[in-house]
């Protein structure tokens, strides 16, 4: 399932594969170490502080600020049809950072270091297969979340 993540995937298997499933359902997930409580985004199965391999997912808000960015004109294989596109490094409110594209509501020309942004889970809508990503939008951007699966009826 992690192969769903990104425009081109290089990592089909990982211990945090469910990150992509949650992303498809509209949830950005970090990880919390089951033993020492250390939080990480992006999520990781193995705690960098203690030796634990047990973790749980914790949803984050996606609220953050722009740390830096660049508009890429010379694209690598698989991204040529998108060029130019803008990658943004976002410092997340709950801690951690992510890298994503400047999205639909955010004009790349308007991206400024220090500005507040909202990271939004996204699905590539027009591909037949499932592909997911997240994008950097203006603060206040909203999106749909799939209902949490209930128990048996």
């Amino acid at each position: 399932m992690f192969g769903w993540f990104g425009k081109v995937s290089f990592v089909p298997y990982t211990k945090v594969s469910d990150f992509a499933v949650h992303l498809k359902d509209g949830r950005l997930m970090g990880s919390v170490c089951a033993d020492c409580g250390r939080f990480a985004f992006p999520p990781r199965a193995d705690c960098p502080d203690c030796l634990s391999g047990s973790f749980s997912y914790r949803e984050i808000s996606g609220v953050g600020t722009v740390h830096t960015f660049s508009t890429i004109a010379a694209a690598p294989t698989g991204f040529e049809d998108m060029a130019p596109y803008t990658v943004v490094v976002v410092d997340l409110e709950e801690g951690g950072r992510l890298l994503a594209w400047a999205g639909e509501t955010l004009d790349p020309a308007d991206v400024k270091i220090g500005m507040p942004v909202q990271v939004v889970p996204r699905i590539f809508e027009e591909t037949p297969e499932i592909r997911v990503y997240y994008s950097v939008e203006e603060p206040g951007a909203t999106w749909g979340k799939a209902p949490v699966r209930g128990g048996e009826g």
Partner: protein
Amino acid sequence: MKLGLEGKAAIVTGGSLGIGRAVAIGLAREGVDVAVNYRRHDAEAKAVVAEIEKLGRRGLAVKADVASFGDAEAMVQQVKEAFGRLDILVCNAGITWDGVIWKMSEQQWDAVIGVNLKGYFNYNRAAAILFKDQKSGKIVNISSINGLRGKFAQTNYAASKGGEIALSKSLAKELGKFNVNVNVVAPGMVLTEMMEKIPAEFKNTALAETVLGRFADPADVADLVAFLCSDRSRHITGEVIKIDGGQYI
């Protein structure tokens, strides 16, 4: 089995009569707020709304011609605003206008395709846009076993019913990643007001086709539709379920 439909909201097209009426009331009985459209039968539509309200749910009757792209868009918006949400679309509105092809007028063809096939496109599209953004939804398109087989004097009707099936399957592929299920219910002969007008010999021929020796009640179809609108059928999508007493096996 608990369907878990309490508090949801639905649109049932052609909900003032026959199968549609049964589906609307059946959903209301499961705790769903239901909106129905009507083109001419406003009294019947209001009666359905009254039944829904008697069951403790909210009901809404909207005048809308299913063949109108704009009416469908407007109705979906109106219902979303009135109920605060929309979770379910059941497309049921349909007409017949039979005739062998060499006697079928252009108008006969266009009308049946327009109401049945284009009508389902209009509502499916408007609901899909909503359901995709909210990452949940259920669409049930009511077709017919005559969408699965050829039927004498029904080139137009069969084409529209077959088209509804192909539309539903394609739509299931587009909406799957957004947690939206799209399924088809294909009844055989159902005892509705529309069927009462059919000559006795055609009814008997149809009855003889069934292996259960009976026709469906509208409530039989409503039960299947309710199941397909619920989380109990969450893993069923792009499917066509016949409900025909074995009329076409």
